[in-house]
């Protein structure tokens, strides 16, 4: 697990619109060379926030990141976010 590297990606995306656009334009390229597990990499590419949450991504960053890069329907995201992460309770998000 590389929680720190996942948090670092999310923070970079949140802080700067250009970085966010680069992430959105080609996520695989953006993540190339980063020390992530395959599960983390795929979850970031798919914006699979439930998996990222389960793996211990910082919830404050995960919230901002997901809302910023979400490509699908926003109302659906708002409706489903809590429901999808709830089964995982409160994973340890310390790095």
């Amino acid at each position, binding site marked *: 697990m590389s929680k720190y590297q996942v*948090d670092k990606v999310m923070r970079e995306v949140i*802080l700067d619109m250009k970085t966010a656009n680069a992430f959105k334009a080609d996520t695989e390229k953006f993540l190339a060379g980063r020390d992530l597990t395959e599960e983390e990499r795929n979850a970031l590419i798919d914006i699979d926030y439930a998996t990222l*949450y389960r793996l211990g991504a*910082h919830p*404050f960053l995960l919230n901002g990141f997901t809302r910023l890069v979400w490509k699908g329907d926003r109302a659906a995201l708002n409706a489903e976010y809590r429901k999808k992460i709830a089964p995982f309770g409160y994973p340890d998000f310390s790095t």
Partner: protein
Amino acid sequence: MAKLVEIMGITHSPNFPGQIAGPDPEPAIVEAARDYELMRKRMAGCRPDVLVVIASDHLNQFFMDNMPAFLIGKAPKAEGPFPHELRTFGIAPYRADIDVDVARSLLQLAPKMGVDFSFSDEFRIDHAFTVPLNFIRPEMDLPIVPIFTNVMAPPIPPARRFYELGNALRKMIAELPADKRVGVLSSGHLAIEIGGPKEGRSSSDPEFDRRMMHLVGSGDVETVIEEATWDRMMASGNVTPGFLNFVLLMGLADGKPPSVSGVRFPKSKGSVPYMAWDVEAGVLP
């Protein structure tokens, strides 16, 4: 010698200013806005020369690559919040000079009080600073000394450490060489959850909020320290440790109960607390 004239704690909720200004705010928001207007007048009435402002950074610049527990900002100027916060929340910016002499003196006095602050000569202040400052000193005419606390990235210092830091800060202020009136403004919150299963519009744990405000209001330091553990705060909401910036104030007040304190419970946002210790009015020795 400097004089501590006022100690104050309020929320830094970035949604609150917009809700006050918005159409048809709910009664609890109107009441909370009135509380904060009284807090503004209270601080102004104490005529501080400098404001020591205690707040967190939301992983905007202090991150897990280099995370200070407690840090004093000593650049000549402070400005914030971050551009992405302006975009997301539509909050007002804040700019202030920093009282670099006071910042340096605090850094020099701290070790003999048992505190080793980190320091920074290049930083921004995020919404945790700008929101309370815009409530309490919208004129932007007072120099500030920002003190950043880590309440976001575990492991964070325990409640007792926040209390002890506040108590040490009280002694540092008393020994400052400058003949200045010092006000302290601390920025925190009660139970709140962001990005977790309990996230909602109102407080994630009103019972925690009531209990903690009761304990703060009665100056029950030991019970606050006993109960405000990481696990208890996480159970109340995953960002609740911002409460610890209020525990720091209890130390700054040397364990005395505040002159005034209270909390509002809006349906549309987390609880809105206030607390103030009028040091100069004789409430405290």
